[in-house]
């Protein structure tokens, strides 16, 4: 016989379940999310029930959506060749590496420049770069300065793997980073006692201040009343390790400015958050490091897994994604890239035991680091991080928000370009094409857009060929034979 208390509690149980589900959806606890991903492992069986519809879609695909017989991949090797060919990886990466080299002869004199590609930022440490040299780490020492072009970036803070040439670079934006700086070209009264010196390092401004590209903090300036807009350069002649740190003397830091609180700060010349794809480690001439090997393509290591789509689209028209018949048991990791017919399709967002969810490149909120090859420019343009905004209804363009560093207000312009993935993000190999695009530099500062044009044959974005669909396996995975 049920008690009155039991009967009275019953209506609240479904509401409690609903509240729990809503909480897990809004702020998913990591442990619960991991448990849920394991519990939902058999979900692949449910996705397979949709196979008749997938087959019908494949049969009904228009000719423009399906790869021509001569380009469809039959095995991992030919798919890899197709990717390398279409990715233009080697040429683009060589150009990006060249962009990182200093341009002024006096900045190269007496130094050996060791180029390195940015792989990622270690989790939880946004001011540190994990970089890879073209060969081993011979001649590299802790504390050596790191630059990009004629601009100071930071210094070598750790040697991760000598044989593979993996280093950690602490950026000048790090809270503990300090570099000596000087201002030159000041009017006579200010420069009467010699150059104005200060220390630069860390970020300036109030904590949480909303600025796309934060200013660098200034410490202990020898003069307080300084005009904004003057240029700062590195000057480590007064530091303890002047011989090593002094290799960066003369490299630019930025322009003097004032932050939100009116304090002196340095407006950077680089996008330290997401615009660093290649850097250069400055070594003293006469060190053990005398030459640099040509960079190897990260796409030629065979770590590509051929996959089959379980679905081609999400049930919600506002989302862009698909599910693949490969999961953690196949070595798939979150963030892995998926490509088809030589183009980036998307990135893995969620991994189950035998399946995974992929967000397409134009799914709203997806972030990518991107390089553009503008038709009217000789050198590739590093765009840094872009954020997908969805597909525009009128013209069908996929829109991306772009925080263009140094984009001055002026006449609006639109530049035709080819878009490629950039470096500096874990799991995202550089040089994979996204497609044809338009760089929109707005009339007002900050209003910059990147438009990805739809595939001309189908009018859609990221069309995939189910017979030519590949997923990138993580570092350490066995190459697929």
């Amino acid at each position, binding site marked *: 016989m049920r008690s009155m208390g039991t009967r009275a509690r019953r209506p609240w149980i479904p*509401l409690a379940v*609903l509240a729990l589900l809503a909480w897990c959806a809004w702020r998913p606890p990591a442990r619960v999310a991991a448990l849920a991903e394991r519990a*939902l492992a058999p979900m692949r069986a449910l996705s397979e029930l949709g196979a008749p519809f997938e087959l019908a879609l494949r049969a009904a695909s228009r000719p423009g959506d399906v790869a021509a017989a001569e380009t469809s991949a039959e095995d991992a090797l030919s798919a890899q060749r197709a990717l390398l060919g279409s990715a233009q990886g080697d040429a683009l990466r060589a150009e990006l590496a060249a962009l990182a080299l200093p341009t002024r002869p006096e900045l190269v004199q007496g130094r050996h420049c060791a180029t390195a590609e940015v792989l990622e930022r270690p989790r939880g440490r946004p001011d540190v770069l994990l970089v890879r040299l073209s060969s081993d780490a011979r001649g590299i020492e802790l504390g050596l300065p790191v630059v990009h072009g004629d601009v100071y970036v930071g210094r070598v803070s750790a040697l991760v793997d000598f044989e593979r040439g993996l280093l950690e670079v602490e950026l000048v934006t790090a809270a503990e980073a300090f570099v000596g700086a000087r201002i030159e070209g000041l009017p006579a009264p200010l420069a009467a006692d010699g150059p104005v010196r200060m220390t630069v390092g860390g970020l300036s401004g109030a904590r949480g201040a909303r600025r796309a590209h934060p200013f660098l903090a200034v410490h202990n300036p020898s003069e307080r009343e300084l005009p904004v807009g003057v240029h700062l350069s590195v000057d480590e002649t007064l530091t303890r390790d002047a011989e090593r740190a002094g290799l960066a003397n003369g490299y630019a830091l930025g322009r003097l400015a004032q932050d939100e609180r009116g304090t002196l700060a340095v407006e950077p010349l680089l996008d330290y958050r997401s615009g660093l794809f290649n850097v250069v480690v400055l070594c003293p001439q006469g060190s053990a490091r005398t030459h640099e090997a040509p960079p190897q393509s990260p796409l030629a290591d065979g770590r590509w897994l051929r996959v089959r789509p379980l679905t081609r689209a999400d*049930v919600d*028209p506002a989302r862009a994604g698909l599910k693949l018949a490969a999961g953690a048991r196949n070595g798939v990791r979150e963030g892995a890239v998926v490509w088809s017919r030589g183009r980036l399709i998307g990135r893995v967002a969620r991994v189950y035991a035998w399946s995974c969810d992929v967000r397409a490149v134009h799914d*709203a909120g997806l972030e990518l680091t991107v390089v553009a090859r503008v038709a009217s420019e000789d050198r590739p343009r590093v765009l840094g991080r872009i954020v997908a905004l969805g597909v525009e209804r009128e013209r069908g363009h996929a829109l991306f*928000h772009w925080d263009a560093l140094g984009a001055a207000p002026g006449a609006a312009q639109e530049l035709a370009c080819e878009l490629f993935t950039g470096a500096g993000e874990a799991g995202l190999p550089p040089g994979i094409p996204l497609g044809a695009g338009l760089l929109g530099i707005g009339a007002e500062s900050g209003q910059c*857009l990147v438009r990805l044009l739809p595939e001309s044959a189908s009018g859609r974005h990221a069309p995939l060929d189910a017979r030519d669909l590949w997923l990138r396996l993580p570092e350490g995975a066995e190459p697929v034979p």
Partner: protein
Amino acid sequence: MRRQGLFPWLLLLIWGCWLLALQASLVSAGVLGRWVPDLGLVLVLALAVRMQGARALVPAVCIGLARCAFSIDAPAAILAGYFAAALLALALRSAFDLQEPFFAAALAGACALACAQWLRWLRAHELPSLPPHARALLDDASAGALPIALASALAALCAGRALAHLPGLPALWKTRP
């Protein structure tokens, strides 16, 4: 549950998967644009208004899991949306005859609108901070949930009763004499 009692639930799962696979195919083909009905939700509500007691909530879980197999949205978000829709149906059926086509369509439209808005709100919550002009473009591109709601209402009006009578499903809600 007795063994013969599990078979209708299995059929429910299969029918749910097929309906959602059809829905995903319609989105992929682009024939309906944004006017794609939430067929899974229509089925959940068609059963919830006919089943007795707390059992009426079970289809929401089954079809919610099926939707997880065809969507990249977070499973907890999908289950919360469908569960809430089923709870609403349970709460309203004492006041309205929700098996009447008009009321069924109104309920399906309202629930589809709410579910779609719930998922959009969660996605907006996960977005990085964007300047106002980018937010405006994002809102415009994502469009409202109204097309889905109206399409779902139409689907419930035309096919709601038929969905509840799919082979094997009446065993879930028909009471024995």
